[in-house]
Each structure stands twice: as C-alpha cells, then as structure tokens.
C-alpha cells in the first residue's frame, strides 16, 4: 500500500500517476475506527483541553454577566449612538455568520464537486458552522433592545393583528439565518448518525451506550438504509449549496438595500460570500491545527488537507482584495460625490487605521500562500489564519461603522466609540463558541468515521482482484457519494 510509504503527516508529494492518499498510515478499517474514537474514548482529554475549557467557560460567564447587565439596563450600555446605530452587535453578527460559511461549503459544495479530501475536515467544519451561527444569532437577538419581544421577528399570529414587513431585508435575514442554522444542523446530525452508532457499539459504560444509542436512532448499517441515506445526503448537499450562497447574500442585502453611501452597491452579495468563505476557512485552520496536534489526528487531517485550505484562503482572499479595489474604482468611476467621499473617508478618514488593518490582514497576508513553503508550514498557516480572522472582523467594522458615522450631511456625522460592554460581549461570544466546540470534540465523533473508511482504497469492492468476473457495475453512471 503506497500510503504507508508516505512520510506521516506530510502527504504533500505530487505523483502524477496516482491519486494522493486521503488517509495515511492505515490500510485497515478497525485501526481507523480505533484511532478516531480514541478522541472520545480516552479516559481524560489532554491537559490543553482543560485549560482551554476553563478559559472558554470564564469568557462564557462574562458573556452571561454582560448580557444580564444589558437586559437590566438597556442598549445604552453599548457604544451604539445616533448615527452609528448598528455598532458592535451587527459587526459581530456578520463576523460570526461569515465564519459559519466554511462548514456548509465544505460539506455541500465540495461534496458535489467530489472533493473527497473534505471527508477529514467536514465534521469539524460543520460543528464550527453551527456554533458560529449560534453566536451570530445571539447578537441580533440582544440588539433589539426589548428582548422579551424577540418573537416579533417571526410571523406569529397575535391579538394585535400585526405581521412583520416581508419587504424588509432584516426579515429576510431572520428567515435566511434560521433556515441556514436548521439545515446545517440537519446536515451535521445526519452525517453523524452512523458514527454515533460506532461509538454506541464500542461503548464501555451503560450511560455512554444509552446516550449514543439514543442519538444514533438504532442505526444498524443496513445497506437498504445506506441507499436512502446516501440519496438523502446528496439531496441535502444540493439544497445546502444554494443556501450557503444565499445566506451571506441576504446578510449583505441588509446593507446593500439601504441608501447609504458605501453600502448601496451591487457588488455586496458576491463580495460578502467570498469574504465569508475566506473567514470560515481561516477559522477551520485555526481550530484544526491545534486539534490535530493535540488529539493525534495527523493521519487524517494531513498536510495536504491544510495545504488545500491554504489555497482556498489564497483564492478567496484575492477575491476579497479584488472587491475592495472594485469598490474604490466604482466609487470614483460613478462620479458620485457621496460614494467617492465614503471610500476616501474609509481609507483616510477617522477610521483609516481600521481600513488598513483590514487590507493588510485580508489582502496582503493570504498572498504568502503563493509560496509552497508557507502552505506547508504549520506555524505560518496558523498565524496567517489568525490574521485573517482579525482582518475579517475589521472588514465588517469598517463597512458598518464608517458608512454610518459619516453619511450625507456633515451636520449628522458622528463618531462611534465602543464601550467595555461591547468588548466583553464580543470576547464572551468566543467563550460560547469555544465551549461548544470543546464539548463537541470531547463527546461527539470529531471526524466522519464512516465517510473516511469509504474513501480508503480498501473500501473499493473491486480492490484486490483484477479479474472482471462478470458482475456489471451499474454504479458507474450512478451518482456515487
């Protein structure tokens, strides 16, 4: 087996005559199962897990406290003002929704494109998506001021005969984000059912067997079930693909449909989607790099996987850079006074520093991935991914705040200054995200075990015998998953 000859954890050599292995160091299924389940079955997680968990829970508690303070006091505790009505909550919302894009992109779009390397990272990325969308959903929820009326967001019959305004992008957002969350959750869960059954069958304690048994729904690996399961998975992928592209488009409508200079542009939907994928992949790298080190998953998340993600970051980062340039060009080319001002002000006005942080992190940083050495260095990738995360937060800050603070009339201009509550809420959302993620790593199958077995050479039913002994293979024109 060629895979065994490959230097472990590298797997980056190009051999034109054969496909690169997706899993290295294994040619048996049982060792794959054991190695992945070890993450959940270890008596104790690595020390780093406890440290990370303690920090996350501390941040999460801070979030709880500031949200309570917000509820009891009012949105005045934030820096939001007139004219910068949106401030941090919307910046954070867009930031988190953006991060939530990589998961479904990996699970749906790469699935449809038959990019089998996705099998090692999709579970991870989907989990990240769900937790990021939870964090995203938090912000508009607490931003509305009177949280006890949050249900007004939804079309629920009420005694006032009031209904939401369906021509408003903000309502589209409610539908887009909640649909995205539901579909991502279904995708994640359906993908996990066979792996939960694996954990159930390996469970050593009654409690584990019952819990995993409950959530694996009595999965018994019947091929008649797999047949429908695979079809359902394909359908979900086909449904989620336009959904991924639609969610951040709808988020961008929140901005683009308004009349504000700097927001009212047609480039917004594709520009937002590219940025979302960009930031999402950066976050996958940020999480996957330490996780594969700590839990010894280097045979599954190989250097080739990381390199592929670095390439996608390079591509989407360049798309984002192009969008920044094109925005400027159109602002100048349109001859529109306000539009031109908005962009010159973004780069050289009171928030110019934020603009240049954004450009250096998002446009310049990913360019290092043109070099093979950078794409194959763990540390370079990890630090670059952190820069991208920072840059993408600043992108949302720049878009949201500069346009609001300096719109048409200088008499209505303002200055947005976040308060300590803003900062603690934002950091606290990382606590929420990381707490959920660490729990996921501890208790749920972190890699798609069944899918990984399916992409191993040993999974091919024709492996090991070249005599085409008459049984026809109707799957060749059939969609294979």
């Amino acid at each position, binding site marked *: 087996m060629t895979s065994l000859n490959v230097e472990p954890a590298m797997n980056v050599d190009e051999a034109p005559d054969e496909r690169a292995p997706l899993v290295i160091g294994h040619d*048996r*299924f049982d060792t794959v199962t054991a190695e992945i389940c070890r993450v959940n079955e270890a008596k104790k997680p690595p020390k780093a897990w406890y440290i990370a968990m303690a920090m996350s829970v501390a941040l999460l508690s801070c979030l709880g406290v500031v949200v309570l303070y917000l509820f009891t006091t009012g949105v005045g505790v934030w820096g939001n003002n007139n004219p910068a009505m949106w401030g941090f909550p919307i910046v954070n919302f867009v930031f988190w929704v953006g991060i939530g894009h990589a998961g479904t992109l990996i699970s749906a779009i790469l699935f449809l494109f038959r990019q089998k390397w996705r099998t090692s990272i999709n579970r991870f990325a989907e989990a990240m998506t769900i937790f990021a969308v939870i964090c995203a959903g938090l912000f508009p929820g607490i931003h509305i001021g009177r949280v006890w009326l949050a249900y007004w967001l939804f079309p629920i019959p009420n005694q006032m005969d009031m209904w939401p305004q369906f021509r408003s992008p903000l309502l589209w957002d409610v539908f*887009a984000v909640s*649909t995205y969350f539901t579909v991502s959750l279904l995708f994640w869960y359906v993908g996990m059912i066979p792996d939960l059954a694996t954990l159930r069958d390996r469970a050593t304690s009654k409690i584990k067997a019952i819990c995993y048994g409950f959530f694996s729904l009595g999965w018994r690996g*019947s091929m008649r079930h797999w047949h429908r399961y695979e*079809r359902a998975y394909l359908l979900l992928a086909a449904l989620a693909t336009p959904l991924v592209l*639609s969610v951040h488009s709808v988020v961008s409508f929140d901005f683009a449909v308004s009349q504000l200079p700097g927001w009212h542009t047609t480039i917004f939907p594709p520009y937002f989607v590219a940025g979302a994928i960009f930031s999402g992949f950066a976050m996958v790298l940020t999480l996957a790099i330490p996780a594969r080190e700590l839990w010894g998953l280097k045979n599954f998340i190989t250097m080739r996987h990381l390199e592929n993600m670095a390439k996608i970051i390079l591509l989407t980062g360049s798309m984002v850079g192009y969008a920044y340039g094109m925005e400027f060009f159109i602002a100048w080319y349109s001859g529109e006074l306000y539009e031109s001002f908005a962009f010159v002000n973004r780069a050289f006005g009171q928030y110019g520093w934020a603009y240049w942080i954004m450009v250096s992190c998002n446009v310049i940083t990913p360019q290092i991935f043109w070099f093979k050495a950078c794409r194959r260095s763990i540390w370079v990738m990890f630090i670059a991914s952190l820069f991208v995360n920072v840059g993408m937060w600043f992108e949302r800050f720049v878009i949201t705040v500069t346009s609001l603070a300096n719109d048409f009339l200088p008499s209505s201009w303002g200055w947005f200054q976040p308060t300590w509550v803003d900062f603690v809420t934002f950091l606290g959302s990382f606590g929420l995200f990381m707490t959920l993620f660490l729990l996921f790593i501890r208790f749920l199958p972190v890699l798609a075990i069944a899918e990984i077995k399916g992409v191993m050479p040993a999974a091919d039913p024709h492996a090991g015998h070249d005599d085409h002994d008459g049984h026809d293979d109707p799957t060749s024109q*059939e969609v294979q998953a």
Partner: protein
Amino acid sequence: MSSAPLQDPVVTKETAGQPWGIAAIFDSPAKIMHAAEATRAAGYRWFDCHVPFPVHGLDWAMGVKHTILPVIVFFGGLTGLLLAIVLQVFTNSIEVDLWAIVPVVGYQFEVSGKPLISAPAFVPVAFELTVLLSALTTVGGMLLLNKLPCLYHPVLKSRHLKRITDDRFVLVIESSDPAFTRADTRAFLSSLEPESIVELEA
C-alpha cells in the same frame, strides 16, 4: 483483508427455536459484494447487508430499487414555496372576509406607494422556506422510509454483530424469506466462505 476465510465457519446459535435469521460475517467489501450477488441469484429476497460504510454497488447487487425519496422531497419543497407565497401575500396585503363572516386582514405597510404584493421582495423568503421544507422532508423522509428510530432489532441485539459499525460486513437472510430453511440456508451461507455464521434470536 488480513485473515484468510475459514474452511468451516464457526456457527454460533443464539436461540434454540426457529432463528429470526442467519447472519454470515465477512471481512471485506469484495466478499460481501460476491455474497450479495450469490444470495440474490440463489433466490433469496428477504436479506440485507449490514456494512460500516456504503459499499458502492452493493445496493444494486442486492437488487435494491431506487428510493422514492427525491420525489417526496420535491413535494416538500413545493409545499415550502407555496407556504411562503401564501404567508407573505396573506400577512402583508390581504383584506378579505372569509366565508363572509371572518375578517382576515394582513398588516399593510404603505411605504412610498410601493405595491403590497411585491414579487421581487418576496423571493428571498420564498427561497428560504423552499429549502427549509425540502431539507426537513429529506431527513424526515429518509428516517421514515428507513423505519428509524428503531428501538429494537435482532441485528442490534446480537453481541456477535457489534463490529458492523467498525470493520465487518454482515449478510443476514431472514427466516421470513420463502426460500429459507434452517439447514439449507446455513449450508448456503457456509458455501460463501464467511468468517463465521450466527443464528440470530428474534
């Protein structure tokens, strides 16, 4: 892959009476593929293969028909689309008396004389609800057709078949199959050279 098939597979009996079915355990996708083809050719219909991951082509070798799931999903999506249109038109524009007595009034937002029924503005929500209901139908339909959640099954009960979700490939012929007789079926399964054979308790 590793261990050579035993010449005379070990037969484990879990029950004294008529078994629910007889399971043959294999250790590679190629073997279960051949076994499924042979079982179908031998005239068995009430049999199933239990595998840790979908073995490509095994469903066709078993004679599994295309699932009807996509058709169900299409109607699920259509329902979502219609629901979205009705919801938006009803809540934002309608003003009628249902059966001449029940006043049904939407909440009409008059904004700069824009039309109440505004097709372009209704597209995003229509799209989202179509996707949402399609996805729910996909998962719900898949579980329903597979009769999941399944609280009890002889295959799940057997402690000899725990490795289905790990690395074993199991073919089970149920005793409800018209061609099933205990001795003949067991002999037939032995001829497929499995690793071992288990008679399952119902």
